C-alpha cells in the first residue's frame, strides 16, 4: 500500500465517521464539533486531489466562518437545561426507503459509468484559478460578491434584536 493510499484511507475514514456522528449524535454540540473533522477531512482530500488553494479556502470559509456561525447558532438556541432526545422516529421507514433508493442510484451511476480521465496536472493552481476568475468567470464572480453583500445585510437585519417588539426575552 502506497503512502498516498494510507493518507486517503485515513481522511476518508475521518470524513465518514465524523459525518455519521453529525447526523446521528444525540447531543447537538457534539454534532457541531464533529462537523469540524468532516470539513478538515474534506480539505485533506482536496490536497490529495491537487487543489491546494481550494483546500485552504475550505478551511478558511468552512472552519473559520460557517462552523463558527453554526456554533453560535447552537449556543444561542439551546436551552442548556433541557436534554434533547427527539430524533424523529416517525418518518424512519419512509426515510430509509428514500435514502436507500437515492444512495443506490448515485452509487450505481458512479460505479458503472466509465469516466474518461486525463493525466492529472501537478503543481500550483492559484494562478490558473485567478486567471479564470478574471476572464471566463468574471460575471459569476461579481454576482457572487453582490450575493454575499446582500446576505451580510440581510442576516444582520433578520438577527437584529429590535427594541419595543414583542419578541424580546
Amino acid at each position, binding site marked *: 500500500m502506497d503512502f498516498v493510499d494510507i493518507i486517503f484511507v485515513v481522511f476518508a475514514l475521518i470524513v465518514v465517521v465524523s459525518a455519521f456522528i453529525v447526523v446521528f449524535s444525540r447531543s447537538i454540540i457534539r454534532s457541531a464539533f464533529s462537523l469540524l473533522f468532516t470539513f478538515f477531512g474534506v480539505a485533506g482530500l482536496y490536497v490529495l486531489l491537487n487543489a491546494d488553494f481550494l483546500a485552504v479556502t475550505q478551511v478558511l470559509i468552512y472552519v473559520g466562518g460557517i462552523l463558527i456561525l453554526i456554533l453560535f447558532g447552537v449556543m444561542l438556541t439551546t436551552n442548556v437545561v433541557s436534554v434533547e432526545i427527539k430524533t424523529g422516529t416517525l418518518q424512519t421507514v419512509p426515510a430509509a426507503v428514500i435514502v436507500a433508493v437515492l444512495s443506490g442510484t448515485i452509487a450505481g451511476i458512479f460505479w458503472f459509468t466509465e469516466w474518461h480521465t486525463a493525466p492529472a496536472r501537478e503543481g500550483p493552481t492559484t494562478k490558473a484559478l485567478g486567471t479564470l476568475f478574471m476572464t471566463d468567470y468574471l460575471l459569476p464572480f461579481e454576482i457572487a460578491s453582490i450575493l454575499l453583500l446582500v446576505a451580510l445585510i*440581510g442576516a444582520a437585519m433578520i438577527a437584529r434584536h429590535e427594541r419595543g417588539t414583542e419578541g424580546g426575552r
Partner: protein
Amino acid sequence: MIPLDYYLILSALLFTFGVIGVVIRRNVIIVFMSIELMLNSVNLTLVGYSAYLGDPTGQMLVFFVIAVAAAEAAVGLGIVIALFRLRRTVNVDEINILKW
C-alpha cells in the same frame, strides 16, 4: 494514484448522510449541518472530476458553491435565531403555523 471511483463513492456516502440528516432530524440546526454535508460532498465530486480531467473549471464551480454556502449560513442562522426568539423552539415539526 487512487481511482476516481473511490472519491465518487465517498462523496455519495457523504451525500447520503446529509439526506438522512435532513429527513430524520428535527432540530433545524442539525438539518442545516446536514445540508452543509451535502454541499461538501458535491464539492468533493467536482474537485475529483477537476483533478482527473486536468481542468481547473471544476474548482471554479466549487468556489461559487462555497460563496453560496457562506451566504446561506449567514441568512439561515439569522432566521433560526429570529425564529427561536419568537417561538422558543428550533424543532421543525413544531414550527407549523403555515400548515392549513
